[in-house]
């Protein structure tokens, strides 16, 4: 079993945005991994490993489309436990959602992966599109917004609990498939691989890299490709013509008591 996990670097979402020249200025941003991709790697590792043992049920490959020199996030995920990396060297200006999706589909195909795990959303672009597109390009089934994943190796299927607007849907998908992961996939019992006891409780959230992991990461292989190597031409379908902060809310007031709050809601805001 081969699992491909897509990982993106984003400007640190805890820093405030800088607006300049009709765009966002990220020249001094700190770059960090997209949180949903940390969850995606954690999902892959929980599927691949047998808790408490050295055995591995799958190889975990992390891939990113980013400038080859700016791949600290890939190294971080190798330190977390992924086996090897693929970097498609491209500048952000060459990328749009179509190019990113085609690059991922091309690598999934050439690597012959059984499962591609993608974050539900990039925290900067908020497209929520890539997983669905990759599944469409590969013509394989998809299960998006996963909160739980249960792998049945004999049947070659995943039972995915998907968070949809009005509840939770369970979808059974045969492999190869594409899964996108949502927040709750990193709760302690969200992932079951059929070998680690179903009752096993993982630590909540994505794991931190161990010291040993960090040392090992330096020795792990990272293949660097160009967009042209995998037959993807660069972007052109999305052009940002303006960026602006949203209109500010008028400043509010602190009220001194519940009585005052009630009075203002009834008489001033007229919402009661």
């Amino acid at each position, binding site marked *: 079993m081969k699992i491909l996990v897509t990982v993106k670097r984003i400007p640190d979402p805890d820093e405030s945005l800088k607006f300049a020249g009709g765009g966002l200025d990220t020249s001094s941003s700190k770059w960090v991994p997209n949180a949903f991709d940390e969850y995606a790697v954690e999902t892959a590792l929980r599927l691949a490993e047998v808790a408490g043992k050295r055995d591995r049920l799958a190889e975990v490959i992390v891939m990113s489309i980013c400038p080859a020199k700016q791949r600290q996030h890939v190294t971080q995920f190798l330190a977390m436990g992924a086996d090897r990396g693929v970097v498609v060297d491209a500048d952000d200006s060459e990328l749009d959602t179509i190019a990113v999706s085609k690059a991922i589909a091309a690598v999934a195909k050439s690597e012959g992966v059984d499962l591609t795990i993608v974050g539900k959303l990039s925290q900067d672009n908020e497209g929520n*599109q890539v997983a669905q*597109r990759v599944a469409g390009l590969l013509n394989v089934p998809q299960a998006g917004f996963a909160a739980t994943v249960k792998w049945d190796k004999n049947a070659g299927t995943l039972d995915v609990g998907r968070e949809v607007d009005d509840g939770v849907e369970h979808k059974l998908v045969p492999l190869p498939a594409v899964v996108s992961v949502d927040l709750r996939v990193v709760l302690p019992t969200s992932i079951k691989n059929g070998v680690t006891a179903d009752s096993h409780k993982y630590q909540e959230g994505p794991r931190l890299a161990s010291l040993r992991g960090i040392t090992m990461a330096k020795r792990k292989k990272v293949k660097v490709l160009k967009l042209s190597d995998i037959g993807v031409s660069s972007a052109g379908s999305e052009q940002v*013509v303006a960026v602006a902060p949203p209109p500010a809310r008028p400043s509010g007031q602190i009220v001194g008591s519940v009585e005052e709050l009630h009075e203002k809601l009834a008489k001033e805001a007229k919402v009661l």
Partner: protein
Amino acid sequence: MSKVLVILETAGGKLRSSSLPGITCGQQIAAKAGAELHLLVLGADTSAAAEVASAGYNAAAVHTLTNAALEPFTAEAWADAIVHATRSIGATIIGGTASSTLRSALPRAAAVLDAPVASEVVAIKSGDTFTRPVSSGRALVDVKLSGAVIGFTARGTEFEAPATGGSPAVNALPDGAFDTRGAKVISLEKTESARPALSEARVVVSGGRGMREGANFKILEQLTDLLGGALGASRAATDAGMVPADLQVGQTGKIVAPELYIAVAISGAIQHLAGMKGSKTIVAINKDEEAPIFQVADYGLVAKWEDAVPRLIELIQSSAS
């Protein structure tokens, strides 16, 4: 003339109200692009097309694709159907409301059509340039899409109910091959609630980690029901299992914009604000005066919920009687 195709969702032979903002957005794009509006009803039962046609929505036609493989919903079969409909109608702009259904199926269909899609559109600049929020709603981007086909999903809170009118014909499209690629929907556990849907409620009362446990949400439910509202929560509260996951408000949960939003024991992380900043009046009740939620609140009360919420309920009850 170019054609805008809006994909609708129906249930029990009726149009789902969540599809209405997608129609409004489609109408606005059609107006700016000088295009015709076309509507698509797809499923095993497309009888809702009659109701859609009688409302008209100033559409040129209401198309149906009736096929058993389209129910229950799967992104795989729906994407096949969307591609098929787009090609049969000759649509150049396709989209609908940003529901979990269309967010699953539309990008998949768009990949096959090699079409770019603007997600969670909040305003229309021109026939191909749409405004959408990024980075937890901290910036608004105008993005111009180019392609033989382009797509959009409309953020539900940002578009009023669509204009009705006209008398479009109902047109059954030729059937196609729609396939789930071996995927099967095993179950759908719906959160049953007598309350209005979060995204449509006039009032939303949300609780956060400071509620400490699920049982404490009873008091918020009481306040919610008194105001005829919907119950919401922060990620910390949903992750902890205090309330079901589909009550989460925020960047990755529901986007709400009620008349009145009451945030109780919620700190106001940017990902939470991204889901409720569009509310008309925001009330925050938090024991920590430094909590960032107070920066977006119209009325902030520094207090413990244990003291504030029961008293607020009392005051509302006594002024009502």
